[in-house]
């Protein structure tokens, strides 16, 4: 009977960071993952700029609309609106193996190689001390963990008027990438009236990104090709699979793909882990001395509910409420194509009107060019496609998509449970219920109105506000929360599941609060700390 030393579940941001810490600690690590890859598209996209491709590549339809047209989506903006055909494999097999039933919550999950990190927007905000404390994270060790993660993945950032909100005390970072002209103009407009904005609790700064602006090992600095939504050529953007690929070259790391972990059972000397092989649908049992769950907050919730719950068990869930706000910046009208451009979000606006760093909202700005006209043309109201095309050609250089995000606290009206589902090979589905209290909804609506008012003062004019539904913001946490008490299905501060000796959770499941700035940097730092705790407790 083979018993592995350390078993990490999942190859996403948390799994990659936890595994790297364990491997660097010198122990034998096995990663179990479904790991869907993309054999169709991964080598299709040439190393050319967006403009060059648009002008000259006859096969461009393969990655812009998908060879089966899968990138053409009719209807309202929904979850994963920014995901392009080249990255669709991140959601392959999800409906079959990890179905969700809900009328109020519409999450995006991944069984891909690299998890949700495949399509991550690279934003790496540090949580403030207040946010760390409310989330239940270790305020003394997290700053060091942020440094470790930043050195590993390469973060580009700028110290500016908002760096207290963006990078906090982070020391290890590269210079930010060059902003596109839309963002440059917003930045300039903000700087002109910086006192006015700061007095009103509005802080605007460069968004820290997991993006290289200098070469690092085999990865190259960003090339400004404006193909960031489509490819990972040059690997300047960090994706979890980059780390996992590097780990697979190490002698003390083994990767087992095509396996979905269903549940675990702690026995005397080891942990038994039940998995389903997604190629054969056969069940197998793996054994390990220590198990580290990093399947994402929803994936971990399923595994914990199956392993420790009963028919009535339910777990809390957190997810950032959010809205898309398309805007126009008139000074950019008719500017034509921008040749050298970065596609990622580049500016962050923090609304801290109470000036207490509590419950602040954040908005990030994206210039719209490489996502193609067809994705946005349906949003033009009351106009046929021909006239809409003619108008959009002029408006597109001035089009900015803002994403506003708000924090989330646990409540009785947000929970997950497992229900029977005979169609799924696992025999169950996750039932999600997510309803915000009307007074909370009102607060976020006011914040969004304030953000829109700030944009107008920055000479950027919001056109409308779109709420694509709860859960579609792709940030999930709080399903197996940190607790000082030995409560079932909670974590102790070291990340170990209370009541168990050898099962840990390294993803965002433990967070007791979900601040507005994206959680990815913090969940990676936490994953590193959990892995350190596992090594320490061995």
């Amino acid at each position, binding site marked *: 009977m083979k018993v592995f030393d350390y078993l990490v579940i999942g190859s996403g941001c948390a799994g990659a960071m936890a595994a790297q810490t364990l491997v660097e600690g010198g122990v034998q690590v096995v990663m179990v993952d479904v790991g869907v890859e993309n054999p169709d598209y991964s080598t299709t996209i040439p190393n050319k700029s967006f403009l060059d491709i648009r002008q000259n590549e006859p096969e461009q339809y393969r990655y812009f609309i998908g060879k089966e047209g899968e990138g053409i989506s009719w209807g309202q903006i929904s979850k994963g609106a920014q995901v392009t055909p080249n990255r669709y494999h991140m959601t392959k097999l999800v409906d079959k193996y990890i179905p969700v039933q809900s009328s109020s919550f519409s999450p995006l999950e991944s069984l891909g190689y690299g998890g949700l990190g495949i399509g991550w927007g690279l934003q790496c905000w540090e949580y403030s001390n207040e946010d760390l404390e409310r989330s239940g994270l270790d305020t003394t060790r997290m700053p060091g963990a942020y440094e470790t993660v930043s050195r590993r993945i390469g973060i580009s950032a700028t110290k500016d008027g908002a760096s207290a909100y963006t990078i906090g005390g982070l020391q290890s970072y590269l210079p930010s990438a060059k902003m596109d002209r839309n963002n440059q103009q917003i930045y300039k407009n903000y700087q002109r009236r910086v006192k006015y904005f700061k007095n009103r609790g509005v802080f605007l700064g460069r968004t820290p990104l997991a993006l290289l602006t200098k070469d690092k090992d085999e990865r190259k600095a960003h090339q400004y090709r404006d193909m960031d939504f489509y490819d990972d050529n040059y690997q300047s953007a960090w994706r979890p699979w980059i780390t996992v690929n590097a780990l697979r070259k190490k002698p003390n790391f083994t990767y087992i793909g095509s396996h979905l972990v269903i549940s675990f059972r702690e026995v005397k000397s080891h942990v038994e882990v039940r998995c389903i092989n997604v190629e054969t649908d056969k069940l197998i049992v793996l054994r390990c001395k220590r198990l580290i769950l990093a399947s994402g907050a929803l994936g971990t919730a399923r595994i914990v509910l199956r392993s420790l719950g009963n028919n009535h068990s339910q777990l809390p869930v957190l997810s950032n409420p959010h809205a898309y706000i398309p805007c126009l910046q008139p000074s950019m*009208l008719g500017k034509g194509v921008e040749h050298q451009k970065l596609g990622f979000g580049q500016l962050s606006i923090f609304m801290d009107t109470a000036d207490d760093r509590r419950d602040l909202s954040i908005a990030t700005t994206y210039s719209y060019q490489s996502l193609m006209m067809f994705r946005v043309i349906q949003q033009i109201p009351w106009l*046929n496609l021909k006239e809409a095309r003619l108008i959009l050609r002029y408006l597109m250089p001035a089009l900015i998509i803002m994403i506003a995000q708000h924090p989330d606290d646990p409540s009785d009206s947000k929970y997950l449970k497992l229900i029977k589902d005979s169609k799924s090979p696992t025999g169950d589905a996750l039932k999600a219920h997510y309803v915000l209290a009307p007074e909370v909804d009102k607060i976020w609506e006011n914040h969004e109105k304030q953000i829109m008012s700030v944009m107008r003062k920055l000479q950027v004019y919001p056109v409308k506000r779109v709420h694509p539904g709860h859960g579609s913001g792709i940030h999930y946490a709080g399903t197996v929360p940190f607790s000082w008490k030995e409560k079932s299905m909670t974590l102790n501060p070291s990340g170990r599941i209370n009541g168990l000796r050898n099962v840990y959770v390294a993803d965002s499941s433990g967070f007791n609060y979900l601040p507005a700035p994206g959680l990815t940097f913090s969940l990676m730092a936490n994953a590193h700390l959990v892995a350190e705790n596992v090594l320490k407790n061995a």
Partner: protein
Amino acid sequence: MISKETSDNLDLQATIFSRYLVNKLPNKLSRSLYQKLVSDDSLIVSDRDLKLLHFVEHNPWSIGLVEAGLVFVRPESALRQRLYIMLAILESMPEYHKDFLPKEASYLYLINVVWYGLRGFVKAIMGIILIKAYRL
């Protein structure tokens, strides 16, 4: 009962839609892609939708009016969804990149923007009348 669509119908639709959207004939690849994507599409085309499609196949001049009218009376119609598919296909062909990439122009172009908006509105009124008159 309205006859079902053949590949000839789809080819004709591709041509009419392309001429309408970008004033150009579709290239071979976009015609075959349109056929493939529309045939694979799970969209259920009702008899009413088929009637509408046959109408524009026989009266290609009407496509601009019908589509503009549909925006108000049946925005989810199969005709608009297929036009949208054709638009996405054309946008991803190098031959038509100039029709979709941002246009460099002065603020005076705003006059054109207003004109396109008004033209779209007038077309919509005429389209609604046409749709009602022919019971499309």
